[in-house]
């Protein structure tokens, strides 16, 4: 996959390599091979279900759901402290999926965790379903904040992290934003606020999948120097492979040990990851697979070897 990324996005990856940001040293204390295997199996199941429910719904956003799958699986399978039987418990970690269109991945993960029956996923985007086209905290158990309009979730995450600080509570607030989304000015208002108020209980993932609805992010509006941007805004920043569980867990571990600054994890990802004809394919940003595409995608995911 890396070769493919190099060929298509040579500029971006080359730049990251030059900064020496890929492959820090790992220890096995944070995550072991057995756990990684479990996470990979879960991600495979999540991807398969994403394709199934988007296919059934006939609309939705596969590209960003598949690019953020490992991040969301990691959060709910070992990082976040949540209790599916008490989704509104005050002492819990929270996730704001600011790039709300990636909610199929979140919904599948929440269902697998037991926040609601897996069968509910069959009614995604339908009248009467609690699974709305974009996240609705009032409808769906386990959704901590409504989102969908880009640029707004990071501010909400800051508010949640700030509430924890005011009340001296020790829960963590996570947020996932998109690279296209980072074009919104509000993202930078929130970034200033988080650093100024030393929200070191806030851990943010940038799902850097390098594409947005109308094309490549770097071709639509650059520059993309996210590391420099967030560093200059007063954040801790770490760049990782967003499909590597080892790197995700280590980055979060580092983030939790870091103090006085919010933490940005720039996750290099592949849009449409896991289905060959969806990877780097803009047609699948906001269009659901149909007919034989569904079968082909599921069969590819089933056959993927770990």
């Amino acid at each position, binding site marked *: 996959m890396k070769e493919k990324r190099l060929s298509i996005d040579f500029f971006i990856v080359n730049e990251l390599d030059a900064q020496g940001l890929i492959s820090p040293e790992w220890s096995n204390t944070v995550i072991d091979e057995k756990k990684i295997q479990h996470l990979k199996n879960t991600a495979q199941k999540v991807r398969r279900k994403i394709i199934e429910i988007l296919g059934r719904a006939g609309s939705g956003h596969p590209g960003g759901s598949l690019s953020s799958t490992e991040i969301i699986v990691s959060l709910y399978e070992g990082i976040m402290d949540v209790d599916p039987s008490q989704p509104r418990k005050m002492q819990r970690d929270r996730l704001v999926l600011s790039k709300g269109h990636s909610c199929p991945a979140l919904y599948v993960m929440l269902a697998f965790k037991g926040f609601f029956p897996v069968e509910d996923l069959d009614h995604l985007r339908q009248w009467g379903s609690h699974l709305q086209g974009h996240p609705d905290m009032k409808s769906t158990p386990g959704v*901590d904040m409504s989102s969908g309009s880009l640029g707004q979730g990071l501010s909400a995450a800051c508010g*949640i992290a700030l509430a924890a600080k005011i009340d001296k509570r020790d829960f963590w607030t996570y947020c996932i934003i998109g690279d296209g989304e980072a074009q919104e000015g509000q993202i930078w208002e929130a970034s200033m*606020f988080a650093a100024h108020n030393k929200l070191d209980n806030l851990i943010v993932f940038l799902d850097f999948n390098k594409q947005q609805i109308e094309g490549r992010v770097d071709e639509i509006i650059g520059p993309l120097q996210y590391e420099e941007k967030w560093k200059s805004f007063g954040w801790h920043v770490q760049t990782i492979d967003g499909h590597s569980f080892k790197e995700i867990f280590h980055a979060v571990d580092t983030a939790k040990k870091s103090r006085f600054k919010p933490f940005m994890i720039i996750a290099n990802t592949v849009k449409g990851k896991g289905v060959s004809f969806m990877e780097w394919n803009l047609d699948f940003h906001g269009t659901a697979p149909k007919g034989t595409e569904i079968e082909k995608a599921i069969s590819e995911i089933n056959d993927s070897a770990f």
Partner: protein
Amino acid sequence: MAELKGTRDGYGEALIELGEKDSNIVVLDADLGSSTRARKFATKFPERYFNVGVAEQNMIGIASGLACTGKTVFASTFAIFATGRPWEQIRNSVCFSNLNVKIVASHGGITVGADGASHQSLEDVAIMRCIPNMKVIVPCDYEETKKTMREIVKVKGPYYIRLGRAKYPVLTNPDTPFEVGKGHIFRKGKHVTIISTGTMLDHALKAAAQLEKQDVQAEVMHIHTIKPIDAELIAASAKKTRCVVTVEEHSVIGGLGSAVSEVLCSCCPVPVERIGIQDKFGRSGSPEVLIKVYNMDVPDIVEAAKKVIQKKD
């Protein structure tokens, strides 16, 4: 002559009063806390007061996050920046999830005065009341602002409270009845109903006094809660007088005049004259001059009343 006091001063004082009772209250400000009087809260509770900087969209987003973690949030700036700039954040981050965010804005209306058009918010009530879950209150004076504050903290969910910049006559006292969602009749009459909101109540009462000298008995109703509006009281008065004048320091498109017309057209269709800003931007000038120039002064209300009486069945 009634004492003159700022509605925003009522806000600042009420914030301290409420902050002492409830440690869950957090106040946000977008660098205009001295002007909105929100900053008073910081003198007592600095740990619960945050100036987010000149970043209104973020302020609303922060408010939504605080609210969904159990806080009662007051967010303040000038009305134009509190509603226009972050409208979509208010809709999607606050109102959609019915979060407990109270947006209290000063500098509503034309009486902002010298700062001119960019700072005179004449559309805020229109764009707030069209959002589901949002409730809208425009108090008439300092005392009523304090009462508004005490009531809205008791109810979870979003509110928009519109205050002014100038000093306005204090027309109510601590004992004047106040209930969110209920209009209040300040003067009984049978020939015409004058319905005002906010600080225009003073002008409405003066107009009624002048009309009396011309043998016209005007009923004066103050509607502080524009949403949910007191349809029952409005309809009952209109059924009696058969004609209505609305008075507001806001565009006649979408404000009180529209809200009252919406009530009347479905339950009691009678002629309505709407005093307010007639689809225009403001200009610099003193509040008194502007009220005259924009045809919202006492003689304008008197003329509108006579005109609408002529249109009666």
